[in-house]
Structures are given as structure tokens and as C-alpha cells.
């Protein structure tokens, strides 16, 4: 192994070591936090070293395969437990370990005094390891290991406070954890099927193969025209079939329509967990999956169209739902769903670099917003209802400033990070993909984004404190520097792919092969208009909620907009009722079905009629044969007799 390979292998190895140390040996809150943070920081160091090493190679050779051991070698299957590292993996590892380090450090103060810090930090390290395996695997099976691994860690961390009957706003942590896992499993089943289809058609699960040219990607074009007949469902090409199955996985993991229902409930976990897993990294795994398999989606335009539709709808639904929430974390949760919709829509339109760009900047500013929200919750002793806040700008000045930065970035205000990346998606939709409807819906969603952030800033920070019992104070400890560093990232993050320079675009070119485009004047005008509209929308919301609407904001009261919009507003608040539909039409009927199948089919029909019934009729027959025996022994004897008769009969007549 070369020196570079060693650095690459170290990236996931150090968090794994940290997990094992904390899980098996180390006791004590301080030591746990220290080990976990150092482990992820070490991984970040290795990731930087690896990127520098990769940068030193020429473009064509920037893909490194490191097979570790043979995992499954049965029949057609020969899957190595192998790592893979290329420019796309490199940016993902930087994001995961970089933001991961800050969130670990943040957690040291945030989780101080928690009942189970050891588990918390062990889980966090395990999560970072699994997420790294997801992005660093050289085949789909190892990717699936990471994919389910992060789901498992998500379960553990959402359920970290599993003993609590409910956390705000009325979620049961253990229920939310199980819900997240089961809903994700629906998507995972799709990925599993995609793997089996790929294996049966191409005989390998490796993306590129050990020599870079023998994976299933290189065999795609020949198969893209093979059609599969699905009977009444029509026909579909093999590649589209794989792509649709992958979309199922994306929809589950990246919380898209119609499977996004688990993410708002996932807020039952500690807030740093929401920042790391449910905003910056794990939920972006779906975007990564599509970008990694972009060759497949390029050959499956029908599937790609569906990605665009799903992403656009999710962006809109998420934004409208975020508009109506009063829980500070729930606003951000729906906002995350909406922003993931932007990324998915971008991948559907073939704007892979734009999607990755937004993934990276979003990772920074959404982690910032969540952590800042966590710092607020920490300072207010676990109050999350914005109706009870107000006036926090005075009592929490640092948090206020960084929150403002995060909000500007999310709203897409020039020159903050989110402006550049969101603009690239919109520009691509308007100018390149020429899908006007999609762009208009996305633009509208981004105006809503600015609006709900304006509303949140007004409700949280503006004016006077509405609840004086809260004793708001700012005590940051180790939380301070992560916030500041992320705020800097949210300001300058756009630099990684400025129009005209296209650094990220060039970096990803060996993987994505996207042509460089000229930045036209029209695009500049478009960007100016969108950012002005966003700024106006945000300002309007701020004015409304810090001015005329303020009077009716009371704990337990409805939003003033509810007065005008009524049930539409309520519907937004409930995430368009998707969760309700599931409860009503799937979860409850499934419970009833379970009882019914057991009672009626198993106990009464199969066992009652078929088994007992035939035993009884055999018994009745047996009674004719012999009076001396009784009960089941008789049955047994009679059956034995039948057997003997059959054997003898066959011996005699069969010959």
C-alpha cells in the first residue's frame, strides 16, 4: 500500500477505534468526550492528508481502490470488503469528518450531565464510521453496510433518551427511533433489490472494478436497451429498473415524498445529533447515491424525471410545513426536507455538481442552525417552543449573530454560502434543463425558505422576552468555537464553486464528466432577481412577526396566519397530512390485520379446520377399525397403518 492508501484507510479506522475504546473500555464523561472528539478530528486530519495526496496525482489516476478482504465469495458473487477513494468521496469525507469534529466538540458541553455520555459518544463515533463506509465503499454491498449502519446509529441516537415518555413537541423517543428505522427499511429493501438486479445482470456489485474499468458502470450501456417485461405494469429497461429501485432507497434515506415522515420525529434525539445526522450527513446519503450512480441515471431519463418531480414536490411541501411550525427544531427539520428536495431535483435534472455544491454548503449552514438552536434550547433549559421565546438577541448575543448568518445562508441571500449553491440549481433548471415549472416551484420554495427564516428570527430573537420564567442565558463552553467556525463556513462556503472559477466543478470532473459552462449575463440578472426576492420575502416575514402579528403570539395559541388560511395552514403544519394517512391507512390496519390473520387464519382455519379437522376425521375412521385403542394413539396407529398399506401396496402392485 502506498502512503496515500494508508491515509485513506485511516479515515474510517480512527472513528472505529474511538467507538471500540468508548464502548468497551473507557468510563467517565470527560474521557468519553475527549476520545470521541479526538478520533473524529484524527479522521479529519487523515481526510485532509488524503485530499492533498489525491490532488498531487494527475486527473486520470485520481481513483484509488483498496481491497481489504474477501467478504462474500459464493457462486457468482465475489465481493471484496474494499475501500474506494476518488474526488467525490474526498469531498464527502471532508464534510463528514469536518462537521463531525465540530459537532463532537459541541456535544462535550451540550451533553454535560447526561445520564449516558459513554453511549452517546460511542454511537456518534460509530455513526461517523458507518457514514464513512457508505461514501468510501468500492461496491454497493459495502455501501449497503454503511447505509444500514447509519440507519442503526440513527435509531440509537434518536432513542438516546429512550426512557422519556415524551420530548417536545410530544414525540416519544423510542417510538420515533423505531419509526425512523422501519420507514428507512422500506427504502433499504429497494436498494437490496437494486443490488440483486445488478448482480444478476452484470455479475458484479463493484462500481468501477479493481482496475477502474470492470465494474458495473462500464457494462451499463450494453444493457440499457434490454427491456424487462413486468406484465401488466408494462416494460422497463434494466437500467431504469435499477434506477427506480434506487429512487426508493433515496426517498427513504433522504426523507423525500412520500417517506419523509420519519425526519420530523427524529428531532426527538439530542440536538447535536439532529445537526450531524438529520441535517448535514446521513440524510444526504441519498443525494450521494444518485451522484455516485450518475451514469445509471443518465441512461434512465424516465427515472431521472421522477427524481425531479419528487424533489420539487418535497421542496415545496417541506417549505410550507416549515412555515407553520412553532417548535424551533421542527422548523429546521422541515427545512432540511425541503433543501434535500432541492438537491434531489438537481440530480434529476442532471446537475450533479450543483447538487453536491448545495449538499456541502447546506451541510455547513444547516449544522450551524441546528447547533445554534441547540445552544438556545440549552440556555433555556429545554424549551423549544418559539412562542415562549422572544428577545433572545439581548440575552444570547453570540448565538443571535451566528444564527443570523445561518439564516441568511439558508435563505439564499448574497453573498452567503446558500445563495451560490441554490442559485446554481435554479440557474441550471431555468437555462440548461429548460424546465420552467420545476424552476418556478423551486424558486417559490426558496422564497418561502426566506419567509420562514424571517419568521423564526422574529419569533426567537426580536422584541422582548415573552416568558420571564425562562431565565435565558448564554453559556457556551465548548459550544462556542464550533458555532463560530461553522458561521465562517456559512459565509465563505460559496467560494468552493464560484461562477467562473468552478473549483468544485473541476475537482469533480474526473468523476462526473460535466462540461464547463460559461456564466452569462442572463444568469447574473437571474441571480440578482432571486436574491432580491428572497431578501424581500425574509424582510416581510420579519416585519410581520415582529410587528402586527406579535400581539397574538402566545403559548398554546395558533399562528395569526391560521385565522386567514384555516385548514390549509393546519394542513401545512401537519406536513400535508402524509403521516396521518400512514397512521390511518397503514399502521392501524396492519395492527388489526396481524390480530385477524392470527385469530382467523392461523388458529381457526389452518389449525382448527385443516389440522385438527383432518386429525378428527382420521380418528373417526380409526374408530371403525378398532375399538380397543383410544385418543391420539389411535390416530397415530391408524396413520402408521396407512403408511404400511401404501408401502406394501406399492411393493406388490408397483412392480
Amino acid at each position: 500500500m502506498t502512503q496515500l492508501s494508508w491515509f485513506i484507510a485511516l479515515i474510517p479506522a480512527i472513528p472505529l477505534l474511538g467507538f471500540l475504546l468508548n464502548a468497551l473500555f473507557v468510563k467517565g464523561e470527560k474521557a468519553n468526550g475527549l476520545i470521541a472528539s479526538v478520533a473524529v478530528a484524527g479522521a479529519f486530519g487523515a481526510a485532509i492528508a488524503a485530499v492533498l495526496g489525491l490532488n498531487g496525482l494527475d486527473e486520470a489516476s485520481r481513483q484509488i481502490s483498496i481491497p481489504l478482504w474477501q467478504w462474500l465469495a459464493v457462486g457468482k458473487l465475489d465481493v471484496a470488503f474494499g475501500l474506494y477513494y476518488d474526488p467525490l468521496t474526498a469531498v464527502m469525507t471532508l464534510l463528514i469528518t469536518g462537521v463531525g469534529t465540530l459537532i463532537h466538540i459541541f456535544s462535550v458541553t451540550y451533553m454535560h450531565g447526561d445520564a449516558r455520555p459513554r453511549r452517546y459518544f460511542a454511537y456518534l463515533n460509530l455513526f461517523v464510521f458507518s457514514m464513512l463506509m457508505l461514501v468510501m465503499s468500492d461496491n454497493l454491498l459495502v455501501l449497503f453496510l454503511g447505509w444500514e449502519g447509519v440507519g442503526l446509529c440513527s435509531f440509537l441516537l434518536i432513542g438516546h433518551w429512550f426512557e422519556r415518555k415524551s420530548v417536545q413537541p410530544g414525540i416519544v423517543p423510542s417510538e420515533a427511533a423505531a419509526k425512523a428505522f422501519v420507514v428507512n427499511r422500506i427504502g433499504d429493501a429497494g436498494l437490496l433489490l437494486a443490488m440483486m438486479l445488478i448482480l444478476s445482470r452484470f455479475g458484479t456489485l463493484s462500481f468501477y472494478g479493481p482496475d477502474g474499468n470492470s465494474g458495473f458502470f462500464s457494462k451499463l450501456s450494453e444493457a440499457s436497451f434490454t427491456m424487462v417485461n413486468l406484465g401488466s405494469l408494462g416494460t422497463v429497461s434494466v437500467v431504469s429498473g435499477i434506477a427506480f429501485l434506487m429512487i426508493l432507497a433515496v426517498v427513504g434515506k433522504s426523507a423525500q415524498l412520500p417517506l419523509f415522515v420519519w425526519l420530523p420525529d427524529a428531532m426527538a434525539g439530542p440536538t447535536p445529533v439532529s445537526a450531524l445526522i438529520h441535517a448535514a450527513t446521513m440524510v444526504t446519503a441519498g443525494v450521494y447515491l444518485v451522484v455516485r450512480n450518475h451514469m445509471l441515471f443518465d441512461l434512465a431519463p424516465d427515472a431521472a424525471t421522477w427524481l425531479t418531480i419528487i424533489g420539487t414536490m418535497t421542496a415545496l411541501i417541506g417549505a410550507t410545513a416549515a412555515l407553520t411550525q412553532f417548535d424551533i427544531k421542527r422548523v429546521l427539520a422541515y427545512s432540511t426536507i425541503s433543501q434535500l428536495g432541492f438537491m434531489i431535483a438537481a440530480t434529476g435534472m442532471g446537475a450533479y455538481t450543483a447538487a453536491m455544491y448545495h449538499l456541502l454548503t447546506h451541510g455547513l449552514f444547516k449544522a450551524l442552525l441546528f447547533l445554534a438552536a441547540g445552544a438556545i434550547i440549552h440556555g433555556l433549559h429545554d424549551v423549544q417552543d418559539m412562542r415562549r421565546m422572544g428577545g433572545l438577541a439581548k440575552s444570547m448575543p453570540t448565538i443571535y449573530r451566528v444564527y443570523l448568518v445561518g439564516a441568511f445562508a439558508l435563505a439564499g441571500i448574497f453573498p452567503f454560502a446558500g445563495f451560490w449553491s441554490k442559485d446554481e440549481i435554479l440557474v441550471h433548471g431555468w437555462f440548461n434543463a429548460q424546465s420552467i415549472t420545476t424552476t418556478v416551484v423551486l424558486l417559490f420554495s426558496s422564497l418561502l425558505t426566506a419567509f420562514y427564516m424571517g419568521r423564526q428570527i422574529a419569533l426567537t430573537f426580536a422584541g422582548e422576552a415573552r416568558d420571564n420564567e425562562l431565565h435565558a442565558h448564554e453559556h457556551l463552553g465548548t459550544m462556542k468555537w464550533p458555532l463560530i467556525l461553522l458561521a465562517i463556513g456559512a459565509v465563505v462556503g460559496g467560494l468552493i464553486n464560484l461562477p467562473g472559477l468552478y473549483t468544485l466543478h473541476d475537482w469533480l470532473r474526473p468523476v462526473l464528466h460535466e462540461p464547463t459552462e460559461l456564466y452569462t449575463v442572463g444568469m447574473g440578472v437571474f441571480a440578482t432577481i432571486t436574491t432580491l426576492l428572497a431578501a424581500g420575502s425574509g424582510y416581510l416575514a420579519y416585519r410581520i412577526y415582529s410587528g402586527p402579528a406579535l400581539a397574538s403570539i402566545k403559548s398554546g395559541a395558533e399562528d395569526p396566519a391560521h385565522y386567514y388560511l384555516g385548514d390549509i395552514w393546519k394542513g401545512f403544519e401537519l406536513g400535508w397530512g402524509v403521516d396521518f394517512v400512514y397512521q390511518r391507512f397503514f399502521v392501524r390496519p396492519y395492527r388489526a390485520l396481524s390480530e385477524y390473520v392470527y385469530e382467523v387464519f392461523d388458529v381457526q382455519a389452518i389449525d382448527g379446520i385443516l389440522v385438527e379437522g383432518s386429525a378428527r376425521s382420521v380418528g373417526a375412521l380409526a374408530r371403525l377399525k378398532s375399538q380397543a385403542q383410544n385418543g391420539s394413539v389411535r390416530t397415530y396407529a391408524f396413520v402408521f397403518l396407512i403408511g404400511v398399506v401404501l408401502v406394501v401396496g406399492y411393493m406388490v402392485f408397483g412392480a
Partner: protein
Amino acid sequence: MISLTAASARSLQRTIAWIVSIANAALVVYALTAMQPLGGYQFVESVEWLSDIGLKYAVGLDGINVWMVVLATLLTPLALFAARNESTHQKSFHALILVLSASLIGAFVATDLLLFYVFFELTLVPTAVLIATHGSGDAKAAAIKFFVYPFIGSVFMLASIAGLVINHYQQTGLMTFDSVILSGAVLNGTLVLDQNLERALFAGFFLAFAIKTPIWPFHTWMPQAQASTPSNGSVDIAGILLKIGAYGMLRFALPFFPHAAVWAAPAIGVLAVISILYSAVIAFGQKDMKVLLSYATISHLGFVMLGIYSQTVEGVTGALITMINSGLTTGALFLIVGILAAQRGSRNRDDFSGVWLTAPTFGTLTLITVFASIGVPGLNGFVGEFLSMQGAWLAPQLGYSYVVFAVIGIVLSAAYLLRMYRGVFMGAAPEENAIHEPSTGELAVLGLLIVAMIVIGLYPNIITSISNASVTDLVNSLNANSQ
């Protein structure tokens, strides 16, 4: 030996049982290390028994049944362990478990068909007696059903055995029950069965093994037996040793009747998929955790059937690994339920809450086991299920439409197991009589089982390197035949 000792000599009985089972385990581990990665039987012992009718005491190990034997020998001490605090019937219990273990191993290693049949039947006796004497509630009724129902099935198998042997005798002039000779004759064409006859004989074997496995709709004896056996899980662990049904399908039903097996595969595949989904749906609503686990077992065995009847290397290996997993993981879960029931005196999941809080290590070990059973990659369950489904997908007689439904099972298994875990281990702990951490010994046993789960999950080569040659031989002979 145990039955010879006086009833009062408790520690002696226990010691004997332990010595025997551990010595057995040591022997198997030796066999495993000495095993050559080749096809065909090794360590063959053959003694003429009734040479007039060609009956032999013939045993041997290959890459497939060696794992069944490993499982049986490793789980026997586990069953003894689970019952170590049982006070009544100790003598009979230890004796019966050892008889069961011996007959099981006998059935697994037998290469002579009649010898297999004898051992196959023999396993019923100790298990039925265990249920009847150690059970509660409707134990006697359950025991009788447990005995009679599979027995009926095996009578049909006996008829089929006779039919097969006689046909072989008529066509070749050799009277033998040796499975190697018989399947060899089928392979090289010296034994040719009429199509309808082959299907009828296959049906006899299938019925016996389908009931024993069990698969839907022949499964009802199993949850009933488990509901009425003692709570400590010992008999259940013994019960899940009963992988001879699935093993018999693979070892005998397929090689003897390859054409009929291919012919019946689509129908059996449907039964397998129904087993997977139907049992998973029922498990979701079960409050008695033992019954829940028995339905989970039936659901897992659906994957085994799917893998076996795919008749591909992937599928058969997947089936083999899933059989091992079902013993390992479900065995551990039964042990866990036994530990819970011993402390609370109930197996109803509604009677528990917040166990993870008061027994953190126990809770974590249980969680890992639960995720192994759900099939999270990195643990053993995933490897088996994935290979079984992949095999079914590749099989010409099955194909993807079966897998598309079977895969729903992995969602449903997460639903029912996490519902159980959430109710029992999460939530607030009761003020009084909270479940406390079990003994170090119990935790250590669970820990060892979990180590095995992780090893199989991350390095399944440990199994496949030994089984590959035998499985490939078997599959090749099936494919050569069915064409």
C-alpha cells in the same frame, strides 16, 4: 448414563451432561479443523448392519452437514445452560436433551437413508416428552400434536423411501439404502423414475420435511408447542435444533428427485414467500414473546426454503447460513426471553418496560441480537437472507417476482422485532421490581453468541470456505440432472 445415576445426585447428572456435550463440541471443532475443502463425504464410518436388505450404519461429514452438527453440538450446552436453575425433573431433562442431541447428530451425519429415517423419528420422542413433562398449560395436548403431526408426515417419507429403494433394486439389482449410491444412480442415469412416480415419491419426502421445517401451512404445531413449554427457553433452543426438515430437503429430497424438485419449485417458492410474510404479520401482534419468536423462526425458514429451491450455489449457501443463523440468533433470543421470564414470571411483552435502563449491558446485548435477526449487514442474518434471495432471483424456476415479495419480509421483521424491543427494553422503568442485570455467566454466554454473529457477518468465508465445494457439487449434480 444419566438415567443410571440416582435422582438425588444432581450435581453428578449435571456434570455428566456438561462433560458429554463439551466433549462432543471439542470433537466437532476438531473435525472442522481437519476438514478438507473438498466435495464428498469425509470421516466416513460404515458398518454392515442388516446386509440382507442392504442396511448399513453409515455416517459421514461433508461441508454441509458439518455445520448442522456444529450448530447442534454448540446449542446443546446452551439448552443445558438455560435450564440450569430448573429444579424439577432435572434427571430426565438432562437425559432427554442428550438423547435429542444424539439423535439429531445421528440424523445429520447419516448417509444411509434408513438410518437417517430412524434418527429422524427418534428426535420426536425426547422433544415430545420434554414438552409433556416440563410444559405448562395445554402441554400434553401440545406434546401429542407435536408428536403425531410430524409423525404423519414422516410415514409418507417412509413410503417414499421404500419406493425409491425398490425401484433402484429392480433397475440395478442392488438393494441399498445408501444415499450416496442412490443419488449417484440418479445422477448417472442408472436409476430412471417415471415422471409421475418421481413426483409422488418427492411429495412424500416433501410432506415430511415441510411439516418438520415447518413451512406454511404446516406450521401450527410449532407456536403451540412453544407456548406451552417452560419459560426458560431451554426446550425452545432444543426445538430450533430441529433443522432436520430443511436439511432433509437439501440432502435427500433434491438429489433423489431433481426433476420433480424443479417442477415443484415455483409452488414451494410461493409457500416459502407466504411463510415469510404471513408469519411476520402474525409475529407483529403477538404479546407472548416466545410465540412471537416462534413465528419469527417460521418467517426465517421461509428464506431457507427459497434458497434451497433456487438450486443455485448462492441460494443453497444462503439457506445453510440462514439455518445456522436461526439457531444462533433465535437461540440467543429465546435465552433472553427466558432470562426476562425468570425474573418477572411472565413472557408477555406488555409486562415489561425500560429494561435497558436497569440492565444496560443486557439491553445492549439484546439489541445487537435483535439487529442480527432483523438482518442488518455486518451481522450474520444479512448474509444468509441476501444470499437466499439472490439465489432465488438467479434461479430460472423462481426469478425476481418471488424476491420482490420476500424482500417485504425484511421490513416486517424490523417492525415486529423493534416493536418488541421498544416495548420491553425502552420506555421508563417501573419503580419496583425492575429487571436487574442477569448473572455474569448469562451475559458471557450471550456475548459469545454475539461474537459468532459478528464473525459470520463480517467474514462468512469461515463457513463458505468449508461448504463451497460440497454445495457446488450438489448444485452441479442437480443442474446436470434437471436438464
